[in-house]
């Protein structure tokens, strides 16, 4: 008899996934139900919002803010590099 587990399927890049796994480990596996493959995993439904917030925080730390009041072409290039 198969088992059906309620959860949320998350599809993301491998890089993001590894961040999520990192968060998961630091929180004693409170989030992830099943690690499916490189780009998929199933997490607890109740924890999704929390996870998203934490992921955002994490990304904000790693992605640099870009100087915004710029109007020259050079800056446009910088913008492109930024993302």
């Amino acid at each position: 008899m198969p088992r059906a587990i309620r959860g949320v399927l998350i599809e993301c890049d491998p890089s993001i996934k590894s961040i999520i796994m990192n968060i998961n480990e630091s929180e004693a596996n409170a989030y992830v139900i099943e690690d499916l493959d490189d780009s998929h995993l199933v997490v607890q439904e109740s924890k999704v919002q929390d996870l998203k917030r934490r992921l955002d925080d994490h990304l904000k730390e790693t992605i640099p803010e870009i100087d915004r009041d710029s109007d020259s072409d050079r800056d446009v290039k910088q913008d492109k590099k930024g993302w």
Partner: protein
Amino acid sequence: MSVNANSSQLSEYLERLPGTTFRRLYQQPSTAFAIFRRMLPHLAKTIVMAMLYMPTPFLLSDLEIWVKPTAKRQKDQALSILRALHIIAVTVPCRETPQSMTLTANFKSSLRFALEGGGDHNSFGVPSQLPIAADVDIAFLDKYARKKWDDILHFVVNSVGLIDSRSDGSNGPKASVKDLLMAGRLVERKGASSTMNITQAGFTFLLQEANSQVWTLLLLWLEAADHANKEGHHTGMESVDMLSFLFLLASLELGRAYSTDALTEPRRNMIPYLVDFGLIYIPHHDRRQYFPTRLATTLTSSESSLRSVSAGFTAASEGMGGAQDSNAIILETNFRMYGYTSSPLQIAVLALFCDLKMRFQELVSGKLTRQSVRRAVDMGITADQIISYLATHAHEQMHRVAASAKKSLLPTVIVDQIRLWQLDTERMATTNGFLFKEFDDYKEYISVVTFADEIGVLQWRNDRKGMFFITYAGLSQVKDFVKNKNKEKKAGK
């Protein structure tokens, strides 16, 4: 050719209606005509026209031959829309007679009436015999409609809080319209303070082109009326009748007076609302005639003609401090944006997703940046909305260049980048549902996963691990399937 985007709300609304409603709707030739014109993809129109004067049912096998194999997708799409709108009826497959389709009786006779004329349905409006005031010309009507509609938009935009309330002394739309906007959750009152706040639906609304905005509002109105009727309030209006009156308005001629006397009681009740929306104009001196405005007569127009219409609109509203609807955005591949406008409304809308740098008389320039787009996305505006806004308001020159160079209207770089910026914020896609695992044997797994795939609820599968994920909605069906399987298995044993 797919149904254009802005008619999708209407088609969603229509497709929810039951068949009996359609039968009543199609009693009016103007309605059948308007739905034919506005709601159908090109191939569907061709099919309907081919069947209109055909004495016998059209065999599906003949249709198969008639439509080229390369256009099978369009054909299937056309048929499904035609069925959803109850325009055609397809016989149930059975062995003796081949499957065929016919136009539904009401639609057929109404569309015939629309093309041939005749009958006494009066569904294309009864012109007023009374003398028309000299000052009510097309320019006047355009100006009137523009003002009414701008008031509504300003009310929505002001709630963003990006610009100060207008100083030109207009006091915004009527309370009934405000209520409607709130009921439709385009704006909402946050907390105890009386300030209005725009919602995501409100942004969607703002970024649409005028025609879709009108439809959005009208559909809200229809739904509100439905709702009120259900709760037992007697509004004297019925959504079916309202809808067919709207289609009637769409087939009227701009600049001509029509008689209110010929209207039925419920329709006369609708008139004050339509005046509030700016769809019709009633002169003060004589309340027995009404004039449809451009907002009404273009309700069932196609996209490209709307472009020319809005150009005419702009021309008519010159001297009113610019027009919100002018096709006046130039987008360059270096992310610069130039908007030829001085209307505070359009500037406010642009400021939602664009870093405005400079403002001149009738020109604002700015740049799309990651921040500006992200800010918009955080507010709930989607990348697609931004793109479609830019596309609908693109400058005539961009249309020309795109048409002559056979390129897409907006630079592809920019379109992709806007989408990428949005994706930036959505590093993961989430789907609620169920993970199935621990199957007894591989055969069982395969049969269940195939079933899930067939009914279209499968999200992810891994045959090696013997696991798959289905959407929330699919659970009951898959569960039943597994149960049946087990029963069979037990019975087999």
